[in-house]
């Protein structure tokens, strides 16, 4: 036994300092970023090496080198660990371990002749500071967004939820370029089956690299063929902590400013945290507005195409006259006219998203005003359709989740084609297809359309209409949280005002 251990340690260390330098330089292909210096100190040779861009060189000079070189002691592994005023000291003796840590920002000190090497973590990560949320901007409520740094994100979440129940489970993802991810949930609340499912999906993932949380989401979703996202990806810490508090599971990934929330219902893509911060009636109004806009966004243009192409008898007489007059100049059938304009709107949106902010605004004006007016005057399209298309484009942008908004915009195109070919029948066919599809979807094994189907009365007060806070004492029961009750309704409402 002792012999075996000796053999293992003998395999690499002890080693001559020059030899070590040679080995490492071979590994890094003579990279100039590897800083390897050898100090002669009290007859000992001390080798200090690190990757220069990964570490904080000021700290190395002040804390490590100063201590090591100022003292007249003889250094061993133990004395270095004991006397250098840094608390991340580690001993290691294997070359592979050494290389991994070297990449991850460790600084190594090797005393020639010793069997182990001492390392200190002095990682220096370049990161941006906290900023306001861009894709999910809110008017009231916390503005801060997640950043690309996992540590910062964990820090923000812990700051929002100071509960010992909160678990950050570490899971490494990606085989070639491993990346750290954290599974986040409240131990006493989250459903264990859900946590296990998620953990298993993450651990079983066999990919060489996970690019981003949004990519991870697509790897671990229930169905990857559908157009609808089944997990919510958010950049708002308050949204993430709200969901986790209610018993959902969060996943954050290093290098990604998005947190994945699961399980998720279809309806939660139309909920904004703002609904909570507003008074319940205003919040409910906005939420209903968003549901209606989703409907409008999918249905308005197809309905126009269907009724103008096939069902003129459905249009009220007065409207018929104005539609007819504006259609009279247009040389295309309604379906082409609609597809053309929808395409134009998507072009504008895409161009606006790609261009720098200042130019983006100009594109909006050029596209909206100039092209729109010119198209009507040139007789390529009718102005009534321009109104419809603009309304449905606006409506699609009300979805708080950008992913869902995009899905809905894409859905319009097959619907328009169906309406143009089969009229109302086509629309009915399309809608039925969508409903059946939505009914079959699951999110982490939980039905996607709950609480409408399967129907759960108690959960409705959080979905379609947001009831006043004192009625929200129960968690979202469709997801079967371990702890169902948030607070006692009666106690929450008790008033202990002193009447004067």
């Amino acid at each position, binding site marked *: 036994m002792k012999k075996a251990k000796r053999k293992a340690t003998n395999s690499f260390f002890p080693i001559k300092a020059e030899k070590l330098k040679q080995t490492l330089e071979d590994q890094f292909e003579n990279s100039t970023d590897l800083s390897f210096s050898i100090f002669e100190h009290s007859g000992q040779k001390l080798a200090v090496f690190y990757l220069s861009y990964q570490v904080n060189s000021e700290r190395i000079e002040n804390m490590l080198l100063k201590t090591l070189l100022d003292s007249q002691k003889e250094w061993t592994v133990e004395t270095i660990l004991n006397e250098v005023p840094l608390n991340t000291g580690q001993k290691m003796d294997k070359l592979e371990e050494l290389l991994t840590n070297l990449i991850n920002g460790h600084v190594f000190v090797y005393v020639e002749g010793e069997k182990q090497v001492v390392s200190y973590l002095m990682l220096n990560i370049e990161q941006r500071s906290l900023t306001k949320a861009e894709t999910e901007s809110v008017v009231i409520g916390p503005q801060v967004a997640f950043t690309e740094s996992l540590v910062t994100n964990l820090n923000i979440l812990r700051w929002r939820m100071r509960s010992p129940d909160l678990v950050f489970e570490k899971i490494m993802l990606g085989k070639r370029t491993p990346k750290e991810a954290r599974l986040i949930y409240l131990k006493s609340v989250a459903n264990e089956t859900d946590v296990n499912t998620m953990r298993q999906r993450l651990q079983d993932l066999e990919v060489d690299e996970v690019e981003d949380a949004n990519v991870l989401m697509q790897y671990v979703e229930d169905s990857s063929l559908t157009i609808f996202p089944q997990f919510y990806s958010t950049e708002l810490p308050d949204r993430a902590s709200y969901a986790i508090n209610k018993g959902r599971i969060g996943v954050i990934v290093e290098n990604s400013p998005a947190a994945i929330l699961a399980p998720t219902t279809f309806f939660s893509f139309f909920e904004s945290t703002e609904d909570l911060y507003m008074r319940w009636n205003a919040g409910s109004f906005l939420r209903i507005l968003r549901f209606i806009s989703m409907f409008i966004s999918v249905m308005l243009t197809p309905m126009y195409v269907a009724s103008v*192409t096939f069902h003129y008898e459905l249009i009220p007489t007065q409207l018929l006259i104005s539609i007819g007059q504006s259609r009279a*100049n247009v040389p295309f059938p309604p379906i082409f006219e609609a597809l053309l304009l929808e395409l134009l709107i998507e072009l504008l949106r895409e161009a606006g998203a790609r261009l720098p902010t200042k130019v983006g605004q100009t594109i909006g004006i050029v596209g909206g005003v100039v092209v729109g007016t010119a198209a009507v005057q040139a*007789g390529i399209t009718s102005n009534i359709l321009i109104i419809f298309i603009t309304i449905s484009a606006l409506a699609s942008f009300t979805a708080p989740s950008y992913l869902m908004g995009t899905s809905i915009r894409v859905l319009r195109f097959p619907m328009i084609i169906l309406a143009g070919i089969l009229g109302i029948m086509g629309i009915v066919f399309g809608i039925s297809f969508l409903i059946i599809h939505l009914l079959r979807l699951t999110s982490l094994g939980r039905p996607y359309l709950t609480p409408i189907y399967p129907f759960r009365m108690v959960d409705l007060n959080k979905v379609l209409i947001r009831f006043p806070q004192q009625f929200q004492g129960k968690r979202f029961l469709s997801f079967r949280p371990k702890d169902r009750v948030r607070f006692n309704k009666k106690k929450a409402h008790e008033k202990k005002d002193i009447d004067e």
Partner: protein
Amino acid sequence: MRLKRLFFLCITLCLLTSCVDSTQLEKLGIIHTRGVDISEEKPSELETTLIIFQFNAQTDMVSKTLSGTGHTIKEAREQANNKSSFALTPGQIRLELYGKEIAQKGIINYLNTLTRDAKVSDTMLLAISDTTAKEILQVGQSDTTMDIGQFLHGLIRQEGLEDSIPEVALHDFTHIYFDVGQDPFLPVITMDDDAPQLAALGIFRGDKYVGDITLDEALLLNMTQKHVGFAPLELEIPRAPLEKYLGDTEPIDPDSENMYVRIGIKGETTSKLTDPEQLGFRSKVDIDVDLHEASEEVVIKDEKVAKVIEEELGKAIKKKYETLFKKVQELNADPIGYGRLYRIKNNNKLTTEEWREKFPEITVDFQVDVNLVHFGTIQ
């Protein structure tokens, strides 16, 4: 595998449906109003006058008048279509107007195609002209600045909304027609000084136009059909009982023994078969009345005045009902629907012919209960 099957299903669906006939708006001549007459040149044929909407880039004129003849309505439409570059379609038809002559011969044949066509709205209106439909539509079209079809539709619709005349939509007419024991009615449009206007309510015996009742009587008829809500009516009542409550304003005609009041009526008339043997009916008129205006100032200080007014109004309304009843009994047409009440009591055994024989014999006792609720309402 499932994907393959789904793909296959979608392909078959697309291929098997083939192409649905498209009816693109701008390629259609959309018939809005249709007038039906007996052709003057060829008495065996129908002549239809169509007001259509057509959308043309060259002109702002949306509505156009076309006419065509044929033995059937559809043939006449086809004939008219030969004069237009647009495909004439009846899906948006809102009003069908019948000439007096054709209405007197019966119109149910022409309604047949309208009721069966799913594209035609059941709430479209029917009306008759006191001359020919062609005259009203053509003269009206050239004279009024507005489109005559929409004008007439609005005119009848407005009166219907005010409850001044009963509902005269297509489904109301056919419903009443096929109901044994009641006869339908339609508004009569007349031409006065080259402007079309609502003249009276035409009473039908079966599907044949037989006579008119006045618009005031139309309101009373409407009350037997449904609950009306404050429909306006002007009544003539004697001055004498109210003499001491009148203010000292000078009436327009001091010699007249009557004065006029305009009221709003809310309520309904419910009828009941009281004597099946002698065919005795009782119609109970139960109404709330708003007093809008009087031709002379009435000083209302206490309930006594209200009592007097209620009594006088009741007498006037009763008289009007009796005139109306006498009129329809002479026409041997039963728009109020006493026959239906009789049929219900009689185990549903009644044919139209039997009721034609019995209807002139029936007696109706009108009981009017007026309740004056507001006065001085501004309307």
